[in-house]
């Protein structure tokens, strides 16, 4: 077995922390090698080193047995190393072709030869089944296609070794499936792949071997065939973790949220929520399953008053929310864990404490006649940080300085602590590691057991299946089916989400 890549005893320090501490990873010719670790474990860092974005403080890198010094991405490219980044590296208002050729443009008489480029791109996309439209602007194409563009970028530069950093975090189940096919096609063509992911299922299904890091330290490499998800999780977190969240049966009571014939249009005046009906009862978790872009986002924004409702009604415990502004909705008893924590969930440049009172700063006891009472605010924050185990130096730390996982915990602390009648959780565990996921799921169930209603929207089917008491499938702005998680499976859900028919539709109701 010959190694195309050897990273031996790599160490990388950032101001404050050791991101990588003596990590060794070896990639074999033609294998898919998983890199597993909690948030902030140091995966991206390690790969950024391999790709030449960072320089290691210690350790050596060998490519095809030769010791190399990868000073910048150009060197990496020359060595045939390509990387698909965790956060896409695409210029939004450039065309697909422009993005792909950027940095190594074919020219004719000093002028970019765009035709030649487009031709080469088409050839590549046919060869690997990566369908893209070279003329389209990035901002106009789906996330899935954007990722294919990222892949072609690397292939266009003749990459033999591909690094995927959390490629599936942003994808729909369908897109994930396609991606896995693509990766298999790539290795068949003799490429070698390093795959970073938090999703053990993916590792089990595509990877040959898996290297685990914990808090920057290399734990070891295992053959995937000889291990199982639980063992991997334990390696990653350093303790046993149980996925099946243990919970007693739900006791749903009266309807908390009632939605009738809801119609919501997006900016382009298209009705993305189109006559949607839904009820959420107290004491239950209702999961909404659906392919991204079927109206989930708009539905939530409509409920929370962030988006104008064109038709239909929304009531909370009989109270009409239809025309209320966001703040009134919140006060009426709705908590909202937004799907984009950085955009909506937090003011990254505020301290944790200031973020904790984002919804309540104007209320007593946090402020009296428009003057904020900071001692009280700090007091409260310390309590929540403690209670929700947000890992932060102090309540004065800027939210920006926390990892996604801890940022998410802070948001959940804020929203859940108000103990709202209805808690809306939109993709609450995206991009987080199993430890954090476990914690968040437990919190949701606690709320349910307190007799609150919980509305869970997620693109991750097993999350929906694990946590919900009922599952509503959304398709093209309508609820097309309500199913019982115990009596359904991913296959059926996937079918419904794709607009397909199903025998047991509505049975759970």
């Amino acid at each position, binding site marked *: 077995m010959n190694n195309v890549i050897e990273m031996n005893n790599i160490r990388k320090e950032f101001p404050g922390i050791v991101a990588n501490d003596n990590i060794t990873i070896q990639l074999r010719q033609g294998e898919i090698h998983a890199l597993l670790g909690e948030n902030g474990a140091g995966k991206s860092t390690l790969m950024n080193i391999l790709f030449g*974005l*960072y320089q290691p403080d210690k350790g050596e890198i060998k490519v095809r047995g030769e010791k190399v010094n990868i000073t910048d991405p150009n060197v990496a490219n020359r060595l045939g190393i390509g990387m698909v980044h965790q956060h896409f590296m*695409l210029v*939004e208002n450039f065309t697909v072709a422009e993005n792909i050729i950027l940095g190594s443009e074919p020219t004719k008489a000093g002028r970019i030869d765009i035709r030649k480029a487009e031709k080469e791109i088409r050839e590549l996309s046919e060869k690997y089944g990566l369908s893209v439209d070279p003329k389209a602007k990035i901002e106009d194409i789906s996330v899935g296609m954007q990722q294919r563009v990222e892949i072609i970028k690397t292939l266009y530069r003749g990459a033999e070794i591909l690094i995927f950093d959390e490629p599936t975090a942003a994808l729909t189940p369908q897109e994930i499936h396609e991606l896995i096919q693509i990766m298999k096609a790539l290795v068949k063509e003799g490429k070698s792949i390093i795959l970073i992911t938090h999703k053990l299922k993916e590792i089990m299904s595509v990877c040959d071997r898996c290297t685990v890091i914990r808090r920057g330290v290399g734990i070891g490499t295992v053959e995937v065939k000889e291990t199982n998800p639980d063992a991997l999780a334990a390696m990653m977190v350093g303790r046993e973790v149980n996925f099946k969240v243990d919970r007693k049966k739900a006791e749903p009571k009266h309807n908390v949220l009632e939605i009738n014939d809801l119609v919501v249009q997006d900016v382009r005046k298209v009705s993305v929520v189109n006559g949607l009906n839904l009820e959420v009862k107290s004491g239950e978790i209702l999961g909404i399953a659906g392919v991204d872009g079927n109206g989930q986002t708009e539905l939530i924004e409509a409920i929370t008053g962030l988006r104008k409702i064109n038709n239909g009604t929304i009531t909370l415990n009989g109270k009409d929310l239809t025309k209320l502004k966001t703040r009134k909705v919140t006060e009426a008893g709705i908590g909202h864990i937004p799907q984009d924590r950085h955009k909506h969930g937090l003011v990254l440049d505020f301290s944790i404490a200031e973020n904790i009172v984002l919804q309540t700063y104007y209320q007593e006891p946090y402020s009296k006649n428009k003057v904020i009472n900071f001692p009280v605010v700090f007091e409260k924050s310390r309590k929540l940080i403690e209670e929700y185990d947000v890992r932060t130096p102090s309540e004065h730390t800027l939210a920006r300085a926390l990892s996604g996982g801890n940022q998410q915990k802070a948001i959940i602390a804020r929203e859940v602590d108000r103990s709202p009648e209805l808690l809306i959780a939109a993709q609450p565990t995206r991009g987080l590691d199993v430890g954090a996921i476990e914690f968040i799921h437990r919190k949701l169930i606690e709320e349910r057991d307190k007799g609150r209603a919980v509305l869970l929207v997620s693109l991750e089917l097993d999350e929906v299946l694990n946590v919900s008491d009922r599952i509503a499938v959304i398709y093209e702005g309508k609820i097309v089916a309500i199913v019982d998680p115990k009596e359904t499976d991913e296959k059926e859900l996937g079918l419904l989400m794709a607009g397909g028919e199903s025998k047991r539709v509505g049975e759970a109701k």
Partner: protein
Amino acid sequence: MSFMDILALVVPATIFLAAPLIFTAIGGLFSERSGVVNIGLEGLMVVGAFTGIVATLYFEGLGFGAWSPWLSLVAAVIVGAVFSLFHAVASITFKADQIVSGVALNFLAVGLTVFLVRNIYGKGQTDYVTHRISRENIPLLQEIPFIGPLLFQRVYFTSFIAIAAAIIVWYIIFYTPFGLRLRSVGEHPTAADTMGIAVNRMRYIGVLLSGAFAGMGGAVFALTTAGNFAGNTIAGQGFMALAALIFGKWHPLGVMGAALFFGLAQSLSITGQTIPFLQNVPQVYLLIAPYVLTILALTGFVGKAEAPRAIGKPYEKGSR
């Protein structure tokens, strides 16, 4: 005056007043397309004007005669580029707030040039140059009926250079690898970096070019109009150019159009009194027209002006 007379008055004046704005705004375009805001255009023009005049006086002293102003334009381009290094180093290498750094550049430009003038000439302003860049009638072309008198009589050669520059830059920005890379670092530097483009190097080039062009703009203004240099020789043209840059939506040809439009408004504020339907309009309206119109334009009357996405943000490796 007949309508033709008025045109013959307004059109050349427009082009003439626009030239320095075109140069400077084009300079700003390089900098801002690369992701570096350049409020310092005014200061760079000041330095250009200073160099243009001082160099001309110097060359005249050496006996270069009528060549002096043209040689000085070259000098102004070089000095402008060098001076813009302040902005580049501060805002790219030291990650200073780009707007602040630009403001500082403006302070420094005026302070330094006047300071130097006092030391060189022992007084607050320079002497007048004997050889300016002067108006010419372009042979043959000026004979063309109608447009001849408007475009090719009593014109400054520098105006043609300005318009040519705008067109060349348009080609460079949109059709060459350099242009693509420059825009990419202004839109998404991290992406550009992963594609092996040296982000900060591109930005340095962008800022230096802005210095060169703005220096040219300042020198052209000084050598066509002012004739000497003092602290108030450049009074707001730099900010006008900035407005033109945005009004023109960071597009070389749009920028040229905007600059010409401002030139028109300026010339109308002067000739207005002789134009029948403008006669009893108080001058102040024409004076503020360019600024008000810019604001109106920005509010979307001519479509949205979208800045490069990454503009204003220093580039941190590995940040996102």
